[in-house]
């Protein structure tokens, strides 16, 4: 049976089967290609020393498939050319996994979010992005940090509606399908919970990048500008704020100044090319570029145009930094410039002296990142790191610097400056300005101590 189907699958036609070296090369190439795509197909025995029986993956395959492969391989060899037999060996290899409708990462990859601290009740906690394990600037949606106040609701997009009312000419209700008919935009923006790194104020430094700065992620968001929906309803002159309410059990709500709402806020339904994940607000959420995570309302179900802020708990009595004098900052929206070395960093281990890349992430919600400097001597000397291009406003910026470790103790950290001239402060500067009772908007420089042993810890 196999040979004919098999030939078809691989795109073999009769012409190619006429024995020639081109055909052999073609066969090899097709074999490699299909293997890369995890399709069942011939896998030429390039290296005979690899024994499929010793390969964990092959073992999971059934004997039937193995026999099928042996048969087809033999058929192939016979059809194509005599010279192939020594390339293919007696048994050949087993085909890899079949096609699948939704991809998964390699079973060898174990990188995961972790809970910041066990929530008071399931659903009220947060989970942290493993920054040290990421490349580039995009956070895979499955690893995007989470912060929920009342769990993740399951919302049917067919039934979901967005109510827009208040100080507007005509209150409107949008269905998902209608929201998607508006001209859309896509932008790469970071999100950072203002509680990211909070423990650092109190002198409880977290031991790894994930634990100190993992309430930070960056995605490409697609949706409709909030301004388009507001124009559709016709904002009245007295309007100054927009209350955004989520469809989670706690109906989490935040007020946004109208100026920002009309500027760059997105009602997003897309995240990294697919639908926004449930944990991130499926089917729609607000993206408020550069502003603290909490105001980026998830599971958006209602927009209320107002002449004043509603003073929900989160804006009136929660996400406010309490200063040493007993006063608190109100409406600390912008996430200020911050950066963190993610490799080499706490929790990691260097094999020995030699060449390494120092890399990490930088961002600012106020202006584009201008420079990131790296120090390996605790801040005595700084060198400019290379920034991955393009550097986008309100997006994560990947920085890199090659480094030759001489084997001596080192203290590694980074410092971000944005185009407004703001320079990421030290821990000491932050504590001097805000005291140790603040719990939000921490953006101090983070140091990692590299011991001679290669061990990395908090500095």
């Amino acid at each position, binding site marked *: 049976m196999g040979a004919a189907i098999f030939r078809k699958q691989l795109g073999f036609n009769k012409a190619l089967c006429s024995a020639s070296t081109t055909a052999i090369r073609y066969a090899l190439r097709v074999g490699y290609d299909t293997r890369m795509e995890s399709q069942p197909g011939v896998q030429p025995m390039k290296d005979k020393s690899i024994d499929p029986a010793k390969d964990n993956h092959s073992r999971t395959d059934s004997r039937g498939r193995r026999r099928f492969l042996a048969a087809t391989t033999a058929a192939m060899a016979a059809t194509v050319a005599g010279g192939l037999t020594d390339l293919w060996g007696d048994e050949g290899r087993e085909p890899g996994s079949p096609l699948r409708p939704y991809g998964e990462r390699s079973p060898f990859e174990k990188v995961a979010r972790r809970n910041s601290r066990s929530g008071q*009740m399931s659903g009220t906690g947060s989970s942290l992005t493993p920054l040290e394990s990421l490349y580039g600037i995009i956070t895979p949606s499955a690893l995007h940090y989470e912060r929920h106040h*009342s769990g993740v609701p399951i919302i049917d997009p067919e039934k979901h509606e967005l109510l827009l009312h208040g100080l507007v000419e005509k209150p409107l209700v949008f269905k998902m399908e209608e929201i998607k008919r508006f001209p859309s935009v896509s932008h790469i923006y970071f999100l950072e919970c203002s509680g990211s790194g909070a423990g650092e104020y109190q002198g409880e430094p977290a031991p790894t990048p994930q634990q100190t700065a993992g309430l930070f992620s960056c995605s490409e968001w697609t949706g409709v500008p909030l301004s*388009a929906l507001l124009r559709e*309803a016709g904002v009245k002159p007295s309007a100054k704020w927009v209350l955004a309410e989520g469809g989670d059990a706690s109906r989490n709500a935040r007020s946004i100044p109208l100026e920002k709402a009309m500027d760059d806020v997105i009602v997003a339904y897309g995240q990294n090319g697919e639908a926004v994940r449930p944990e991130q607000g499926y089917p729609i959420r607000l993206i408020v570029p550069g502003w603290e995570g909490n105001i980026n309302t998830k599971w958006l179900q209602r927009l209320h145009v107002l002449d004043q802020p509603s003073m929900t*708990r989160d804006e009136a*009595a929660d996400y406010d930094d309490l200063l040493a004098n007993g006063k608190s900052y109100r409406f600390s929206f912008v996430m200020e410039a911050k950066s963190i070395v993610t490799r080499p960093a706490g929790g990691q281990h260097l094999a020995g002296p030699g060449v390494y890349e120092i890399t990490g992430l930088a961002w600012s919600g106020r202006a584009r990142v201008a420079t990131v400097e790296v120090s390996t001597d605790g801040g005595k000397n700084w060198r400019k790191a290379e920034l991955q291009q393009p550097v986008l406003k309100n997006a994560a910026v990947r920085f890199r610097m090659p480094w030759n470790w001489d084997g001596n103790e080192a203290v590694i950290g980074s410092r971000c400056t944005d185009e407004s001239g703001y320079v990421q402060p030290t821990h000491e500067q932050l504590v001097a300005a805000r005291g140790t009772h603040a719990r939000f908007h921490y953006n101090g420089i983070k140091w990692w101590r590299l011991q001679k042993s290669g061990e990395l810890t908090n500095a």
Partner: protein
Amino acid sequence: MPRKMFRKIFLVALCFVVCGALHAQTGSDKQAGLGRPASAEEVKQRDVTTLPNGAGLPDGKGTAAQGETVYRDKCAACHGPNGEGSPQGTQLVGGVGSLASDNPVRTVGSYWPYATSVWDYIHRAMPLNQPGSLSADDTYAVTAFLLNRNKIIEASEVMDKESLPKVRMPNRDGFIPDARPDVGKGSLSTGNGKNKKSQAR
């Protein structure tokens, strides 16, 4: 005469056509014609917004005495019998006057600037395991209970949409506008420790 009249009619007609076209154009520029009108009825049904001046608060009322029962039945398991907090729920009572001390205790009583925010939050989010299950009366009552235990109102005071916004919370004036950038050298470019961009929002 008829000629003049004809001209008049023509001009008026022209005006209509031009205006109509202009209107249509601006209309299509600004409006997509998407979304259906929301009826006053459904807005009322879904609108749970409250403001510090009391706007949005529904009818209903309650006292701390009535609230004690609600609290015991629906809140105490997580927040402790007297609002002292537990691993399952935030401390809700106490800490008044502690904010400038070395050990500030943030609670509804010591920290929250508006009584309406307490009502709003309980109405939206509590009890955590069953948000939306309290009646308006119960919500007023349990809010009154928390305010009373924080020594902000008397046990006999009736809380409703008129009285609740008038309650003066101890930390009403405890907030100042975000003064950031308060560190980070503010700005290398302007040199005055503040930069305009960040102030503008």
